């Protein structure tokens, strides 16, 4: 019996016929995120969803650090942190023993941990509230798109509602309607990639259990011989258990309550007291569309690309899609960039998607080895990993989601000087650091991103002339190693160290907190050129 009370969003009658600037199809995690991102930038958004509630079941529970930073920018960071279960550590078990543990965020000085576990239904409910609070998102539940006509001038949609079909037009359509996207199907867009046969079983159980909040992964444990098992802690005393069943399992038989209880009892012990909250059997694919932009239609999240769950790259990849497209579409809507900027969504998110597909495919090959040789190598790695540290790098129970580095993006201005690694190069997401402002503790990332570009300027008072600051085409964010008015105080020196910054170092940040360009010494003309390049207003000049 589910303990969660699912909201039921009201059907407020059919959408009015007419023309809309931006229509989002699909009110799941990704659709709601991109709608909120656009609305917080000031755009009006129509959101259509065929259902009238949130995700059934906890589904995508692992919110990676980058997603948390994005949600912080969207005003939901504190709420997710307060409710969610934070974790940085993972432990790998082989047969009956723990073989090693790893820390995903081994350094201090970040606002957010490596991961927070939170049921997808909470995230969607809060995103819905936040969308509503902007006053700019028109949420239409029980609206199912049944026809799509794409064109260079806009998209014509047929939408089925409880009161009949309505025809609307949209300047831009964002397809966030999941792996079985009706929009993708209507356009006849094929996916290319791999389909895996192995079946998996998710069981969410409610129980009181005193165990550290860490990710636990078992290869071939005594309680589930021959398979793998993954355990995560969620809020509300809910625990996610994911069993590998093999390719021949019968999903319906496996979902029978008695069978599920027996599996869980074998794992937790005969005397363990637990209730089953949610059960789901699944298979997965690692594949994507050839392109994510089709004239006036953009595909985001699972509608664009699908991965295995190992590594938490599905939901987190989709949130990064939303983060990437929101500011670009807003720049086009407001006339500060041309349509060329929108092509960079493909240029940036296709390589990111390929990285997620490759990582999650490799994890799957390790977790479900095909053939005797693959199994021998897999087990050999695990046998070595307890005693010999080198082998731990080979253990692949999921390469956990990290922000994509948009190295090849045409929006980047290449470095013209040497910078110490791992400071963020053009295409990388900005790195957080502790700062103080007006005597209180704060975080660097809170001051970056949002509407417009920002320019991080490192140095003290006197390092920059008022005249050159006045000429900047972007908002300056001063970071000083001494306490001074109007500047973020890098009291620990961590910010300067993470950016390999010296006095007069300048770093241009896009509205999605990605580095567009950086200079050893501020030059307002170079900033203006790099900003134009990051808006696809001019081509590279070298």
């Amino acid at each position, binding site marked *: 019996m589910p303990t969660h009370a699912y909201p039921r969003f009201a059907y407020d009658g059919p959408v009015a016929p007419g023309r809309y600037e931006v229509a989002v199809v699909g009110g799941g995690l990704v659709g709601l995120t991109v709608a909120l991102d656009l609305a917080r930038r000031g755009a009006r958004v129509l959101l259509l969803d065929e259902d009238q509630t949130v995700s059934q079941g906890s589904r995508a529970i692992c919110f990676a650090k980058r997603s948390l930073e994005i949600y912080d920018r969207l005003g939901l960071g504190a709420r997710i942190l307060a409710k969610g279960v934070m974790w940085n550590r993972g432990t790998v078990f082989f047969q009956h023993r723990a073989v090693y543990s790893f820390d995903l965020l081994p350094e201090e000085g970040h606002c957010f941990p490596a991961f927070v576990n939170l049921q997808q239904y909470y995230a969607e409910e809060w995103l819905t509230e936040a969308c509503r609070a902007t006053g700019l998102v028109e949420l239409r539940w029980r609206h199912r798109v049944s026809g799509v006509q794409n064109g260079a001038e806009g998209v014509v949609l047929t939408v089925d509602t409880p009161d009949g079909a309505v025809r609307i037009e949209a300047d831009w359509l964002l397809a966030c309607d999941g792996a079985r996207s009706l929009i993708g199907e209507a356009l006849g867009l094929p996916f290319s990639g791999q389909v895996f046969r192995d079946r998996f079983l998710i069981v969410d159980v409610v129980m009181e259990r005193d165990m550290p909040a860490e990710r636990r992964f078992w290869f071939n444990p005594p309680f589930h011989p021959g398979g793998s098992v993954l355990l995560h802690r969620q809020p509300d005393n809910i625990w996610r258990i994911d069993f590998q069943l093999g390719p021949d399992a019968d999903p319906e038989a496996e979902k029978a309550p008695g069978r599920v209880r027996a599996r869980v009892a074998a794992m937790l012990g005969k005397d363990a007291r637990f209730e089953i909250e949610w059960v789901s059997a699944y298979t997965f694919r690692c594949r994507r569309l050839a392109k994510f932009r089709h004239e006036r239609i953009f595909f985001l999240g699972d509608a664009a690309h699908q991965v295995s769950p190992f590594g938490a790259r599905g939901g987190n990849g989709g949130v990064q899609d939303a983060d990437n497209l929101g500011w670009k579409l807003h720049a086009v809507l407001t006339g500060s960039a041309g349509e060329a900027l929108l092509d960079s969504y493909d240029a940036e998110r296709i390589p990111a998607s390929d990285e997620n597909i490759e990582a999650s495919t490799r994890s799957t090959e390790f977790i479900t080895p095909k053939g005797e040789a693959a199994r021998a190598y897999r087990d*050999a790695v695990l046998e*070595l990993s307890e005693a010999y540290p080198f082998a731990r790098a080979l253990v692949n129970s999921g390469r956990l989601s990290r922000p994509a580095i948009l190295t090849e993006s045409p929006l980047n201005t290449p470095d013209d000087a040497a910078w110490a690694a791992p400071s963020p190069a053009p295409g990388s997401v900005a790195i957080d650091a502790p700062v103080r402002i007006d005597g209180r503790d704060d975080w660097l990332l809170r001051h970056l991103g949002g509407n417009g570009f920002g320019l991080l300027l490192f140095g003290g008072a006197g390092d920059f002339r008022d005249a050159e600051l006045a000429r900047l085409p972007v908002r300056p964010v001063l970071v000083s190693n001494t306490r001074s008015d109007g500047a973020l105080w890098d009291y620990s020196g961590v910010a300067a160290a993470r950016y390999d910054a010296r006095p007069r170092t300048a770093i241009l940040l896009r509205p999605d907190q990605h580095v567009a360009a950086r200079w050893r010494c501020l030059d307002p003309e170079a900033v203006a050129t790099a900003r134009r390049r990051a808006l696809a207003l001019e081509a590279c000049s070298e």
Partner: protein
Amino acid sequence: MIHTEARLTDPDGLFEALIASHRDLTPEASRRLDARIILLLANQIGDVSVVREVIAAAARVGAPA
């Protein structure tokens, strides 16, 4: 280029040690032992591009299946 000329300090001893390590093992256990040996040797080399050359060199001379 990987070394394919003679370099071993004690070829007969190496052969004997490899065979001895597999004595009394089931085919599955034997296969895992070989895999562990290969993985340790690969780490000893360190540079994966060299290991890739080794893989290619080994695949080149095998009899057809």
